[in-house]
């Protein structure tokens, strides 16, 4: 609290009087701040050393936490009794003089008390003589005057504040200002703004207490704060709380409450509160908080996403680095593999450039990879002319049906030798559809081809031997078959002679005799032809065949054999069977073998029991199937298992070649040959061949 100019003048005068009365070189006058209890110096007079901490501005003697003032200076304040010492250094309270401080040789101090309240101090020091009790009495009188001056000053202050406050309250302040009774909380005064904030008229506010206006949820907090203020724990209460507006709506306010010390009383009688409407701010705050929370969660989420993306990116980068290293390694590895491959590998780009050609190219073709690279059409040129068609068809096929393709053809190597090549290739196409050309592998299969051809030749020879053997077995039957037309010819010729000799000759009968002779002779010729076919080497040509027709012809050939062996034949040919692709001589040989096999199985039976059932049908898979069922002795498990193995026979006189050759023929036709035992008696042999499709025609 700033001392008023009036008090200053009085204190100056009183200090001058005190110094003059005691002849003191130094003088000090102060007042106690009623709020802090600190002893605030107004004036310090006397010569002061430069280093002294107590020169301008006037010193302040702080009250300690224990409520006591320090050193000999504060002694009188603590004891509330005036005293003097002409040897301060030896005084029990003295703690010695700090360096640079005014050297105090004699000291006299008087507390200023107003109705027992300590309100100030007058102290003097360093007169040229010792202090006396008289000095003490004089200064006590001065202290009383000083106390009265302070009392008057306080009164004036209160009056002024009251005036100021009234002005404040009546003024159109931007904040609400209100005075409350410190004990009851009753509103004493309020300004217009406060009324606006709470929605009551000035008159209504006067009849209310702050407890009534405070939002119930905030009341405890408010009372708690006021209690602290009342007991002096805090000097000012600042808080944010809600009032209840007259219309019932909560009003957020920030208020600062301070006690107004009442005149002549230790405890404040009034509280002054400055009230600021912060509803808008609160709302904004709330929204801000919400927005911040949103923002934070968004940020958090984004951060998490970023972090994940970052991790992924790092992972990708590592993976990529690893892949790149791996790629390099793989490149090295694959090149090594490619270079050391036994086959002739190459990769040709769409424009025909040879991207890669393995060194085996030279071993197989005689041309080096660089020769091949220099002349991209060299591969086509060295293909044997007869096989160029295969190559060209293959090139077409690649274009229309992308995918792995395998073809076989011959090339003429640099040295002029013919080499068989198995060429397999596949277009290299990126996922985006871009073509990188064709990757191909050429394998030298010359040895395999030679072996195959030898085998093929041997098989054909064996098939021929087998047919000749069969023809021999059928000799008697074929003779019989031939005898029929020959016998008919003889009869018809004799009859023709008779008709000619008649008078007149029966020309009509003669003519039909001659016609029958011709038919019979043709029939005999067919028998001979069939026989000859069996002795012929087959050419490998295949054609479109009808199984039923093939069977019919074969059964005609076997007609006499079946008769001679007293076999009852039943045929069940499915009409509308699809065609098959095959070599008729070879397939006929198979049918003959199967029928003969069935006949042999029935030799031991009495003639009436020899049943042969020949059926054709289309299987579930669409294949054309022949079933030859006999009523013979049936097959052992071993026979079914080893069916078609060369030299495996159940017949005492058999060579074991018939079924082996049959099976080979059928398999070469893409078909299947197998046998099962019938549930009742005998066995059934099955021959299945793929049906001709529109594509084959």
């Amino acid at each position, binding site marked *: 609290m700033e001392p008023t100019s009036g008090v200053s003048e009085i204190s100056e005068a009183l200090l001058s009087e005190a110094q003059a009365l005691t002849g003191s070189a130094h003088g000090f006058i102060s007042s106690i701040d009623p709020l802090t209890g600190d002893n605030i110096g107004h004036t310090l007079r006397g010569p002061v050393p430069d280093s002294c901490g107590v020169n301008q501005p006037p010193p302040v003697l702080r009250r300690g936490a224990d409520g006591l003032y320090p050193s000999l200076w504060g002694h009188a304040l603590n004891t509330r009794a005036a005293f003097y010492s002409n040897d301060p250094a030896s005084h029990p309270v003295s703690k010695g003089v700090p360096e640079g401080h005014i050297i105090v040789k004699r000291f006299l101090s008087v507390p200023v008390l107003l109705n027992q309240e300590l309100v100030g101090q007058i102290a003097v020091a360093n007169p040229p003589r010792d202090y006396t009790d008289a000095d003490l009495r004089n200064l006590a009188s001065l202290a009383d005057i000083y106390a009265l001056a302070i009392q008057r000053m306080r009164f004036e202050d209160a009056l002024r504040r009251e005036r100021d406050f009234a002005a404040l309250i009546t003024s159109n302040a931007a904040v609400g200002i209100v005075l409350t009774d410190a004990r009851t909380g009753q509103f004493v005064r309020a300004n217009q703004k406060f009324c606006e904030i709470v929605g009551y008229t000035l008159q209504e506010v006067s009849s209310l207490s702050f407890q009534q206006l405070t939002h119930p949820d905030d009341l405890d907090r408010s009372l708690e704060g006021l209690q602290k203020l009342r007991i002096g724990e805090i000097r000012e209460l600042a808080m944010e709380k809600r009032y209840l507006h007259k219309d019932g709506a909560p009003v957020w306010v920030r208020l600062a409450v301070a006690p107004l010390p009442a005149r002549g009383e230790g405890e404040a009688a009034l509280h002054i509160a400055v009230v600021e409407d912060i509803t808008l701010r609160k709302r904004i705050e709330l929204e801000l908080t919400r927005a911040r929370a949103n923002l934070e969660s968004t940020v958090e989420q984004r951060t998490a996403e970023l972090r994940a993306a970052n991790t992924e990116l790092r992972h990708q980068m590592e993976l990529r680095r690893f892949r790149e290293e791996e790629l390099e390694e793989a490149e090295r590895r694959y090149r090594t593999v490619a270079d050391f491959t036994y086959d002739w590998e190459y990769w040709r780009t769409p424009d025909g450039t040879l991207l890669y050609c393995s060194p085996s190219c030279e071993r197989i073709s005689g041309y080096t990879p660089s020769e091949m690279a220099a002349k991209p059409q060299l591969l086509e040129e060295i293909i044997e002319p007869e096989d160029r068609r295969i190559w060209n068809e293959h090139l077409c096929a690649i274009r229309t049906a992308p995918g792995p393709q395998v073809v076989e053809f011959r090339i003429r190597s640099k040295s002029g030798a013919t080499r068989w090549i198995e060429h397999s290739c596949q277009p290299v196409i990126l996922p985006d559809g871009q073509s990188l050309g064709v990757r191909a592998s050429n394998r030298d299969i010359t040895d395999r081809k030679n072996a195959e051809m030898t085998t093929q030749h041997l098989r054909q020879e064996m098939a021929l031997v087998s047919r000749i053997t069969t023809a021999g077995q059928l000799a*008697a039957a074929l*003779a*019989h078959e031939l*005898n*029929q*037309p*020959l*016998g*008919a*010819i*003889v*009869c*018809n010729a*004799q*009859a*023709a*002679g*008779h*008709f000619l000799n008649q008078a007149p000759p029966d020309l009509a*009968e003669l003519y*039909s*005799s001659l016609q*029958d002779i011709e*038919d*019979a002779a043709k*029939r005999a010729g067919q028998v001979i032809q069939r026989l000859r076919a069996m002795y012929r080497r087959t050419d490998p040509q295949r054609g479109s065949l009808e199984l039923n027709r093939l069977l019919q012809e074969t059964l005609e050939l076997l007609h*006499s054999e*079946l*008769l*001679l062996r*007293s076999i*009852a*034949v039943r045929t069940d040919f499915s009409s509308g069977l699809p065609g098959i692709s095959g070599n008729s001589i070879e397939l006929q040989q198979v049918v003959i073998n199967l029928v003969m096999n069935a006949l042999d199985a029935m030799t031991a039976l009495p003639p009436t029991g020899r049943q042969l059932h020949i059926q054709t049908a289309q299987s579930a898979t669409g294949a054309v199937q022949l079933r030859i069922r006999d009523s013979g002795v049936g097959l052992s498990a071993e026979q079914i298992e080893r069916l078609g193995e060369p030299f495996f026979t159940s017949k005492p006189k058999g060579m074991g070649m018939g079924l082996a050759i049959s099976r080979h023929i059928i398999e070469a036709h893409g078909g299947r040959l197998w046998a099962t035992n019938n549930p009742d008696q005998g066995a059934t042999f099955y021959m299945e061949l793929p049906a001709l499709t529109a594509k084959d025609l």
Partner: protein
Amino acid sequence: MSTSGTVYIVDDDPGMRRAMARLCASTGLKADTFATASDFLALTQLDRPACILLDLCMPRQNGLDVQAELARRSIQAPVVFITGHGDIPSTVRAMKAGAVDFITKPFDHHDLLGIIRKALEKDLARQTADSETQLIHQQFHTLTPREAEVMKLVMRGMLNKQIAAELGASEQTIKVHRGRVMDKMRVESVAELVQAAVKAGLLGK
């Protein structure tokens, strides 16, 4: 050549059937053709004289089966087998079973017509013989049991006195029986009686 009769041709081969039938027709013989044995065996009555041409080798019932069935039915028409080469065992069996002849296709060394004619003549002869025997049998069946007994003893060459003693009758009675036998059997002498009995196969009876 004036041989007449019916030729039954049983052959599964249509060409052969037609050819043989035409050959027969060209010489005025009646020919009847059958594709299977069962078709032929379905006939209940055969013409006489007849000749049966049987293909030995046929599906299901072959020539031998037909021959056996004819024998079972006591049909004695001559059977000629037509064979191919290489089935000699069957031919032997056929001949043993009473076939009159066999001919091998393609008839290069044989005259089919000649064989047919011979067979028809044989059947005709058998037919004649058969009718005489039938008459003798009819005459024989008119005899009383006593007369039949007397006839048996007469054919043994016994005298009336011996027969009377054998049968315990008077010589006069035997003489009457003997006269009736000679009348009924229409013979003049004992020699003729024996001849007729042999011809009709009555000797064992």
